[in-house]
């Protein structure tokens, strides 16, 4: 789209540039502020005396003798063993993304290729399912899970997240598959392939762009989930977000807010690397298929 033939007028260039700068500040400033603040003590980070303390680290200097401290990081990773939660989150994300996408591609493909009305109703009902607030669902799961003795384990949380995520995944992948020409798999079937073989050998090789984009959203959902993981996982199997919540303290006791801040900052770094690593796939994934409503 940004071909040379289409030179933008200077005014438009400036407007676009300004928009970009303003948005980048809005999106990234809170994060960089947090990154800076994570090396301070709580009294500076949430400074109620004077907000500039967060910049100068006045209390940090009084308490630790230096204007920067790694107490928060030490506390979270060593003392509170945050790496365990990070490991659990890695497992949850990995399995949620792969299972969601497996189920979703199969279902989405079928929905895109079926010409019957029931396929539409299936999609519609799935969408209405999505309207149910997750907290209500979770309160319904608890008695049953305890009864079946499956409460507290990672696989339980994984399958619940997959299920809750299915409507969105299906809807999105269905749109991607619609964009893949029908001739492709139909000609394979004329050549004697079964439906599944056509899917396996013809569709799978060309579906990656859509799958990667959908996978990105599945990943964000699993990574950020609190409602499900906080209620369904045992303390030992806790993922990052509930663990971070547990640093915040309760009504009657003080927490370690800086541990939470340090934990949040340090888990963002791997995501940055991940996105940089998959950058080309994500951008090309987005390029190859558009979503349709």
């Amino acid at each position: 789209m940004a071909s040379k033939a289409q030179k933008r007028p200077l005014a438009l260039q400036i407007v676009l540039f300004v928009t970009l700068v303003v948005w980048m500040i809005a999106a990234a400033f809170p994060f960089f502020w947090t990154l800076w603040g994570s090396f301070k003590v709580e009294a500076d980070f949430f400074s109620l005396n004077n907000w500039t303390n967060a910049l100068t680290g006045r209390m940090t200097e009084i308490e630790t003798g230096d204007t920067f401290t790694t107490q928060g990081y030490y506390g979270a990773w060593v003392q509170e063993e945050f790496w365990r939660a990070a490991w659990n989150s890695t497992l949850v994300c990995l399995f949620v993304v792969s299972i969601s996408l497996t189920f979703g591609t199969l279902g989405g493909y079928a929905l895109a290729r079926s010409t019957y009305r029931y396929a539409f109703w299936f999609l519609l009902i799935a969408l209405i399912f999505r309207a149910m607030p997750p907290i209500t669902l979770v309160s319904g799961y608890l008695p049953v899970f305890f009864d079946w003795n499956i409460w507290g384990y990672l696989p339980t949380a994984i399958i619940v997240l997959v299920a809750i995520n299915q409507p969105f995944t299906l809807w999105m992948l269905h749109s991607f598959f619609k964009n893949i020409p029908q001739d492709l798999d139909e000609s394979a079937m004329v050549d004697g392939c079964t439906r599944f073989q056509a899917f396996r050998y013809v569709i799978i090789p060309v579906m990656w762009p859509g799958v990667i984009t959908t996978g990105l959203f599945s990943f964000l959902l699993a990574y950020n989930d609190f409602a499900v993981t906080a209620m369904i996982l045992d303390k030992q199997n806790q993922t990052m977000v509930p663990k971070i919540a547990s640093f915040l303290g309760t009504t009657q006791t003080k927490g370690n807010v800086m541990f939470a801040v340090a934990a949040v900052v340090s888990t963002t770094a791997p995501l940055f690397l991940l996105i940089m690593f998959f950058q080309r796939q994500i951008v090309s994934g987005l390029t190859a298929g558009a979503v349709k409503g």
Partner: protein
Amino acid sequence: MKHNAFFWFVLPSATAMMLFIFFPIVSVVIQSFHVAHEQVIIEVENCGPFGCTTATAIDQEATAALREEQPLGRFAGLEIYKDRNHLAVNEFAQTWQQSEGIGDFVVRLMNLPFYKALGFTLTYVAVVTPLTILFGFIIAVAVNSAARSLRGPLIFFTLLPNIVTPLIGGLILFWMVDARGVIGTALRYLADDPSLSVKADTGLMWIMLMVYGVWSSAPFAFIVYYAGLQTVSTDTLEAARIDGASRWQQIRHVVIPHLLPLTTFIALIQLMDNFRVFEPIISFNAQAHATSLSWAIYNDLSGETQQLSSAAATSVLTVIGVAILLSPVLVRTYRSYGKA
């Protein structure tokens, strides 16, 4: 596709949804029609480290028999839906009769918890959804015009509001907008009002929640639009240009129609997510100023005594609300289904 093949292809997905969404929904709906058994209250003496007091307790033996008979509780029909904490049918009618004029009626209606929550929820949906779509589109156009090598980092930073968990993102922003925080101080300076406090004023609190809403969901709209922009056919644009279309006309007649189906998709997801707004109210401790339907459910479930039936009724009302909200979009999709 044949019925048989369709069945096998959707089976894993359908099973998962059946087990973990459909069955729970059925049980939620049933629950919402039942209230707990009449509890037999007796007067008792309780003793503890701080002495003895006379108190009340439930007579377990008397109640146990009732429970055994009907484990779900008493069937109550629509009673819970109609009570004061939900649709408040009687109070609604009463308010209608007593109030002088429509303004007074609305003010009085906002005193009922369900309508108060609905009021904020609908305002939030109406403001945040279009703004999210608009900002997402503008950002997508801007990022798309940036140099190719910069796009990776730009995408990452754009996604940040979505990546940093709302639990902490909210906490940090909550401090930032505090009257003494960095944004709060800036606002005071800009408004030239040394007593300005976002957290003390209902109107400002609403605005802040909505700004947060747009900020945190614009990345979603951005990603989808950005994907769409990559597929705008250069041939069509070329042709339009040769025909003498201005830049605006190109956008108006080529790009926007191309992105329209995407807008439907974003609108669908955003309407639904915004209708279930919940996290910012908790993160910003905003319940004195704003409540939402999802917040009401959370409030019912998180008290010392869980109110399952009440939460179930609000959940069902939420689903109905979403269905009504989405119906125009869905009807459109229904008509075009099979054509695309």
